């Protein structure tokens, strides 16, 4: 593949604490889909206590962790809240999954107490009886293909008037009642979908890459890739769980 001279830097936040549910798959997917197109890609890991220079990042991944670990992360995140907010308001790309999604909001109320969030998006989460655990299928405006994944969360997220990531075709979504899943705010996607999210949803992955490239280099067309394997994996889940 001919080099495009372009480069994407992915910041993986707190992999020492937030590393549940195959988050590494989301990183691998973004990296490879850049590299296969001749776009240089680099991932920088920031562990708890590290200083983060958001001006050097093009995509930020905030992954999932257990409730206990999330509480530890939260203390660290509050220290970088202002820089993180500037990054988001400036159109910085963020993909936040599970625990990371909950941390985007005002707070996450659990039985053990209140975890203060980053307050980057006007949403909040409260723990309720029973975890929502199953495969999940969405229809999202960000992709032609359905979005498929797996959800496993005790928190119910209220997204107020924000735009959801998708409409639930199978599964529970944000709260098991509203019929919607996740949130989209500027170039931020927050979602409960892991599995991990991106390998079976290559159009979502490309959406993130395109947004990051456009912010850095202006209008961008991504070269097409052979996604037959991704499409087969996606179609399998869709047809197994969604009755037409």
């Amino acid at each position: 593949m001919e080099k495009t001279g372009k480069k994407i830097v992915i910041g993986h936040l707190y992999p020492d604490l937030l590393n549940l549910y195959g988050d590494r798959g989301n990183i691998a997917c973004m990296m490879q889909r850049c590299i296969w197109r001749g776009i240089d890609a680099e991932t920088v890991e920031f562990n708890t206590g590290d200083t983060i220079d958001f001006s050097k990042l093009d995509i930020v991944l905030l992954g999932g962790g257990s409730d206990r670990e999330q509480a530890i992360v939260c203390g660290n995140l509050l220290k970088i809240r202002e820089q993180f907010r500037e990054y988001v308001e400036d159109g910085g790309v963020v993909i936040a999954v599970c625990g990371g999604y909950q941390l985007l909001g005002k707070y996450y109320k659990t039985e053990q107490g209140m975890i203060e969030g980053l307050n980057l998006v006007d949403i909040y989460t409260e723990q309720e009886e029973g975890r929502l655990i199953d495969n999940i299928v969405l229809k999202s405006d960000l992709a032609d293909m359905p979005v498929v994944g797996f959800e496993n969360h005790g928190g119910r997220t209220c997204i107020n008037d924000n735009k959801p990531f998708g409409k639930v075709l199978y599964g529970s979504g944000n709260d098991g009642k509203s019929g919607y899943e996740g949130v989209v705010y500027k170039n931020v996607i927050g979602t409960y979908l892991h599995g991990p999210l991106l390998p079976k949803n290559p159009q979502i992955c490309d959406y993130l890459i395109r947004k990051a490239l456009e912010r850095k280099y202006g209008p961008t067309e991504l070269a097409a890739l052979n996604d037959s394997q991704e499409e087969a994996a996606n179609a399998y889940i869709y047809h197994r769980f969604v009755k037409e």
Partner: protein
Amino acid sequence: MLAVWAAKITEKVSVHVFHRQGVTWAGKIALRICPSILRDLAGQVKKDIFIVCGTNGKTTTNNMLCAAMEAEGYRVVCNHTGSNMLNGVAAAFALSAGIGGNLKADYACIEIDEASTRRVFPHFKPDYMVLTNLFRDQLDRYGEIDITMNILKEVMQSAPEMKVIVNGDDALSAYLAMDSGNDYVTYGISEQVTDDADSREIREGRFCKCCGAPLSYRFYHYSQLGDYACTQCDFRRPDIRFDAGDVEIGDGLAFTVEGNRIRANYKGFYNVYNILAAYAAMRTGGLKAGHFNEMLSRFNPENGRMESFRIQNVKVTLNLAKNPAGFNQNISAVMQDEALKDIIIVINDNAQDGTDVSWLWDVDFDRFKEDKIRSITVSGIRCYDMGLRMKYVDIPAMSEPDVEKAIRQRIADGCGNLYVLVNYTALFSTRNVLKRLEGEK
């Protein structure tokens, strides 16, 4: 007595008529007829009841402990097939009882699924618990590791007389043993055996369970097993009572404990821990282990743990791998065989496997790039996920959802050395296929 009969009949019928694992049914029916059957039969065990818990190594450790006791001349009740929930445990006792409802057993060796301990402990209180390790496994079923630890702590405290035989190299298991208040003894490996510092492997429990500060490691064996100490408080790896020294890992395994050289013809570092755990349990229970090596030389797990088959001159090795720590260890074991090989990976997502297959992305499959591999085939219900997993580390793989077809193809066109790596529910069906093909001319 009726319950024992019913269990025996159910087991025979389901195995011979339905060709399936009938053990769980047998236990269910026995408990339905006589709810106190497990308490009654467990009460008849003459000496001690050992249970084995922990994420990985339960079945091998438990079966090895049973074989070691039998080698010393004792009669032992054991749930050999690995049916480790309440019904499986009840079945093990019911099927060992005589038709008069009497149990003639000196010891019991029972593996119990961690989450099922809560349902088993009301029936009997074990004398010893072996705790092998705690890794992430089936997050959709058990929730987080913290939840499993809470369950185990609760059952340990419900049996304060029970002594815990714990893997001291695992900070999570060791903390649990210390925190429970139960008496405990440790086993472990105090010397560095492999160079695992650069591994990208996911490590659980990087933070001290006592105070939340990061743990520092002198070395890792694999996953989070190693020599650790808290950077803030006094929590550290406990002193090791049964310490394996001069560890050799290659085509076979060897180590020295209590001055005895132990040798086994198996692969895989994790088997050092399995053997050491069984040895430590024997000795802690006050038994001699004079026939331990003899037992190991005869020991054939025959349950899909590095089990060998020969099909039309192809050497086939079947191995179970159901979570990231187990799979990473399996990859190491496969790579210890330096010959060219074909690999089939079978991944299902049935309830017993865990319906969430995201753990595949926590396994270091990229290490296969350094191995001499002729082909990789992905199979099973979630073969497409597995195929993508390989694609994103740039390793080509063929997809064939049907396991039997995949095996037949690689037998026909492969290099004569085939590894079949399977997760839990794929184990029984794959093993049946291999047994049948082995019988075909």
